[in-house]
C-alpha cells in the first residue's frame, strides 16, 4: 500500500516539476553587486547597506521580479563585496565587478573611496581618448558633496547635506529667534565631517548666528577636556558637532562632566543612527539632526522592518541602498536591459543612459528629484534624540 502511495506521490512530483519547468526557464537571475566597508570601524555601514539591498531585492522578487528586455522575468540576486573603506581596495573591487557580467554596481560607503573610484571611470561618455572604465556606479552612502560630477558614469542617491543644513538653520531662525551665538565642533581628520562643518558654519552665518569659534579633534581621539573648556568659556547658545558617533559621544560626555549645557545641540547627519544612542543616549538627549530617513511613511516603516529582519538597520544611508534597487528595477525595465552575458557592454550603456535620464524617482519619504550632475534631491526631516530614540521633530515642506 505504502509502495503504491510513494509511486503516485513521486509521479505527481515529476509531473509538477515538468509543469513548472517552463516557468523557471522564463526566469533569469539578475545579479546586482554592492560594495562598501564590511570590515574595519565602519563595518556597520556595509552590513546595513547589504541588508537593505537584499531586503529590497526580496521585496521586488516577491512582487514578480523585474521584466527584462526580451520579456523574461528576472529575479534579483545580491552580492556584496568588502572594500574596507580603502580607496585602493575599492578600485580593485570595482575592477573585479566590471570584469564580470555585472552591468551596474552599488556603492561605496566612504567618500574617500568614491572620490578615487569615480576618478578611474571615463569622465565624459563617448570620449574615445579617455580609456577610463565604462561602468555605471550608483552610490548609496558616500556623503561628501558633489562627487558624481567626477564622471558621467557616476551617480548618487545620497541626500544633499547643503540643502539639509540650509533648511535646518533657516527653521531654527524662525523657531528660536532668541538664539544668537553658535560654537562648532569638528572631527578635523575626516573628510565628511570637515566638509559638512563648512556647510553648517556658512548656513549659521547666513541665518544671522554669530560663530564664536570652533573646537577641533581627531577621529580616534580619547580626551576632549581642552576642547570642551573652550566651548564652556565661549558660552554659546548653540553647539553644532560635525563628527561621527564615537567622538560625538566622547564630546557630549565631556560636556556633561563640565556642565556645558547649550540651549540647542546640532549633530552630523551620520550621527542620527543607533550607534549614537548605544554610545550616549543620555547625553545626546535633545540633539537635532537632519536626516533623509525616518520610519514615518508606510513604505519607510515596511523597509525598516525588512532591513531589520536581515540583520541591518535602516538609516539615511541604508535607506538610500533600498531605494536604489527600485531605481535599478525601473531603469532595467524602461531601457530593456537583457542581463545576459553577451549583452553586458550594451546593458552597461543602457543602464548609464537610463540613470542619466531620470528626472525623479520614488523614495521612501516621497519623490526624489535628480539633478543634471547625477545627484539626488531627497526629501528630509529633522529628528531629535528623545527618551533614547530618534523622533521626528519637524518635516520641512518639500
Amino acid at each position: 500500500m505504502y509502495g503504491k502511495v510513494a509511486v503516485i506521490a513521486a509521479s505527481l512530483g515529476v509531473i509538477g516539476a515538468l509543469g513548472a519547468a517552463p516557468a523557471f526557464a522564463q526566469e533569469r537571475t539578475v545579479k546586482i553587486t554592492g560594495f562598501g566597508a564590511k570590515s574595519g570601524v565602519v563595518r556597520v555601514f556595509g552590513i546595513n547597506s547589504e541588508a537593505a539591498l537584499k531586503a529590497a531585492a526580496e521585496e521586488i522578487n516577491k512582487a514578480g521580479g523585474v521584466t527584462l528586455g526580451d520579456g523574461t522575468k528576472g529575479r534579483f540576486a545580491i552580492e556584496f563585496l568588502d572594500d574596507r573603506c580603502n580607496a585602493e581596495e575599492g578600485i580593485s573591487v570595482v575592477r573585479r565587478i566590471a570584469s564580470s557580467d555585472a552591468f551596474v554596481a552599488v556603492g561605496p560607503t566612504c567618500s574617500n573611496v568614491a572620490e578615487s573610484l569615480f576618478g578611474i571611470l571615463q569622465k565624459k561618455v563617448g570620449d574615445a581618448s579617455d580609456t577610463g572604465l565604462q561602468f555605471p556606479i550608483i552610490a548609496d552612502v558616500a556623503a561628501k558633496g558633489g562627487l558624481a560630477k567626477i564622471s558621467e558614469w557616476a551617480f548618487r542617491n545620497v541626500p544633499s547635506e547643503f540643502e539639509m543644513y540650509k533648511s535646518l538653520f533657516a527653521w531654527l531662525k524662525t523657531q528660536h529667534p532668541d538664539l544668537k551665538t553658535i560654537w562648532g565642533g569638528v572631527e578635523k581628520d575626516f573628510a565628511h565631517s570637515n566638509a559638512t562643518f563648512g556647510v553648517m558654519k556658512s548656513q549659521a552665518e547666513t541665518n544671522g548666528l554669530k560663530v564664536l569659534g570652533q573646537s577641533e579633534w581627531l577621529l580616534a581621539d580619547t580626551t576632549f577636556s581642552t576642547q570642551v573648556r573652550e566651548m564652556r568659556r565661549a558660552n554659546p547658545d548653540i553647539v553644532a558637532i560635525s563628527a561621527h558617533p564615537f567622538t560625538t559621544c566622547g564630546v557630549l560626555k565631556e560636556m556633561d562632566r563640565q556642565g556645558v549645557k547649550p540651549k540647542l545641540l546640532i549633530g552630523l547627519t551620520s550621527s542620527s543612527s543607533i550607534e549614537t544612542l548605544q554610545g550616549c543616549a543620555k547625553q545626546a538627549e535633545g540633539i537635532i539632526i537632519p536626516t533623509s530617513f525616518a520610519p514615518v511613511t508606510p513604505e519607510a516603516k515596511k523597509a525598516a522592518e525588512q532591513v531589520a529582519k536581515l540583520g541591518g538597520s535602516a538609516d539615511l544611508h541604508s535607506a538610500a541602498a533600498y531605494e536604489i534597487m527600485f531605481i535599478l528595477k525601473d531603469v532595467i525595465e524602461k531601457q530593456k536591459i537583457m542581463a545576459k552575458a553577451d549583452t553586458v557592454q550594451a546593458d552597461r550603456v543602457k543602464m548609464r543612459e537610463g540613470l542619466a535620464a531620470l528626472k525623479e524617482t520614488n523614495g521612501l519619504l516621497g519623490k526624489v528629484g535628480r539633478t543634471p550632475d547625477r545627484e539626488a534631491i531627497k526629501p528630509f526631516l529633522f529628528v531629535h534624540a528623545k527618551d533614547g530614540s530618534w523622533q521626528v521633530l519637524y518635516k520641512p515642506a518639500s
Partner: protein
Amino acid sequence: MLDLIDALQSVADGVLFGATYALLGIGFTLIFGVMHKINLSYAAASIGAAYASLLLLAGVKAPPVLVFLMAAACGGVIGALVYFVAFRFIPLANPLATLMSTVGLLLLIDEIVVHATAGVPLNYPALFSDVVIRAGAFNLRGDLMFVFALGCVAMVLLWALLYRTRLGIATRAVSQQPVAAQLCGISIDGVNILTFVITGVLGGLAGAMTGAAIGVLSPLLSLPLTVKGLIVTVIGGLGSIPGAIVAGLLVGGIENVVQFFRGVSERDLYVMMLLFAFLVFRPGGLFAPAAGRD
C-alpha cells in the same frame, strides 16, 4: 589669568588621563622586561578584553566594578592566548618574527572586535564619573583620579610580586639569566605564560579604565593606544615599571598642553618629537634598568 588656569587645567586633565597610558605602558614594559620582546598586540588585547567584559555581561545589569573585574579576567585569558599564538611556537631568537606575529595579532584582535560589534561604539560604565573635585575654576575628574590611583596600586602590587614572591624571583631570574634559571629548575615556559597572564589582567584593567575614562569603547582605540603605549615604554625606559608610570603621566600632560597652545593638528607632532629626542639623547629612557641578560 583665565588662560593660566586653563593651561594648568589642561596639564591636570592630561596627567590624569595619562594614567591610562601608564597602565598600558606597564604591560608593554613588563613583557619586554621578562622576554625582551615587544608585544604590539597588547593595546588591542586590552581593548578586546574591555569589549569582552561588556559582551559577556550583556543583558545583566552588572555594577561597574564587576565589569572591570570581568575585563581583567578576560585580559588574562587573552594574554595567555596571545602568548601561545604569537610567541610560544615562534622562534624567539629572531626578534622580527615575534614582532610581526604580534602585528598580525593586533589586526586580528581588532577585526574580531569589529566583527563581534559591527564596529559600533559601546557605552562603557565608569566609577566616580559624577565626582568632580572643584577649586574655583579648577577641577579634577573623580573617575580619572580613580584610574590614577589604580595605576599606582598596580605598580605597588607588581613591585611586590616581582621582589617579594618566589614567582617574582623566578621571573627576574628568567629575565636576567634564562639559561641559568632553567638549570635551576625554573620553567621558562611557565614564567612566560604567567607574565602574559599577569600583563593580560593588567591590560584588561587598562582597557576597562580607558573605556571608563572616555565613556565609550570603539575599535578605533587600538592603534592610537598601541602607539601611545610604545612611546610611554620607550620614554619610561624599556623594562622599567616606575618609568612607564611617570612616562604615561608625562605624555598625557604634554599632549594636552600642546593641544591647548598649538591645537589638535600639531599635538601628535610634538609627542613624536619628544620620542625622537629620547631615542637620540636618552635611548635608555627615564628609568632604564641595568642590563643583565645573557
